[in-house]
């Protein structure tokens, strides 16, 4: 039996410390996921509390057909999507205009980005650019990309968390990754062509 299952059995027998151990283990990842979904730290904090509270109350219904982490991320995702659907419905999906624009620019490519060393891509400035590019995606696309490429869930697990088909997850992931790729490439192309950079070279 894995450590999560052991803790769940203890919690169901009334051991609150076991619940705190699960919270300690997952709170950072859940908070990161919620922050990326709603793009608001205070709201993410409220949704974090709501997620773990719902998880605690829902534990007797956890059947173990998926891992605990998949189940917990599903609660977090549903909590965030419910909030967004109620308060910011336009932020969830692409509208058709943006959808078509993304398809048109799919083949944009330049060597500046791939030739940039990893330490520059992951510098403070580089990280901000990555965060911004992800933040600009609609929520459904952003969450699929974060679950797959940041959290490392399999496509099957992402489809369970998002309550979508694997085909829908693949399609959103393709669009999300290309949108982020294009944003980063444009940024590094402009950076490479900036007067300062040209003078330096």
């Amino acid at each position, binding site marked *: 039996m894995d450590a999560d299952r052991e803790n769940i059995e203890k919690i169901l027998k009334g051991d609150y410390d076991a*619940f*705190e151990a699960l919270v300690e283990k997952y709170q950072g990842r859940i908070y990161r996921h919620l922050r990326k979904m709603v793009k608001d730290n205070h709201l993410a904090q409220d949704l974090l509390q709501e997620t773990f509270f719902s998880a605690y109350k829902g534990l007797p219904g956890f059947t173990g057909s998926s891992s605990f982490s998949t189940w917990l991320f599903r609660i977090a995702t549903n909590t965030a999507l419910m909030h967004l659907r109620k308060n910011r419905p336009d932020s969830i999906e692409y509208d058709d205009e943006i959808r078509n624009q993304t398809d048109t620019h799919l083949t944009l490519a330049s060597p500046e980005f791939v030739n940039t060393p990893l330490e520059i891509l992951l510098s403070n400035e580089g990280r901000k650019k*990555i965060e911004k590019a992800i933040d600009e995606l609609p929520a459904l696309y952003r969450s699929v990309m974060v679950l797959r490429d940041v959290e490392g869930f399999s496509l099957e697990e992402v489809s369970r968390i998002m309550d979508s088909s694997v085909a829908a997850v693949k399609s959103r992931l393709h669009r999300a990754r290309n949108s982020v790729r294009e944003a980063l490439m444009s940024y590094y192309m402009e950076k490479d062509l900036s007067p300062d950079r040209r003078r330096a070279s």
Partner: protein
Amino acid sequence: MKTCKEFCDCLSDYLDGEMGEDQCRIIEDHLDRCPPCQLIYQSLATTVEICGKAIQPEIPDEVREKLRRFLREHCAGDKCEF
């Protein structure tokens, strides 16, 4: 798959290991012969790699503490029996 766009549409699945052996071979042959598609593939792979490393699972102490207090208040003891 015939056009570069059709190849590029498969690159995300290819990166995820979702293509069959024959399809992988066709994509790899094309990437070997097509520098623009090779560049798109490399930039997509780089994007996926750096996104995975860029966003850390940090949680401020204040948020951690508020969560702990909230849950103790609402769940601990007999406040939320199963």
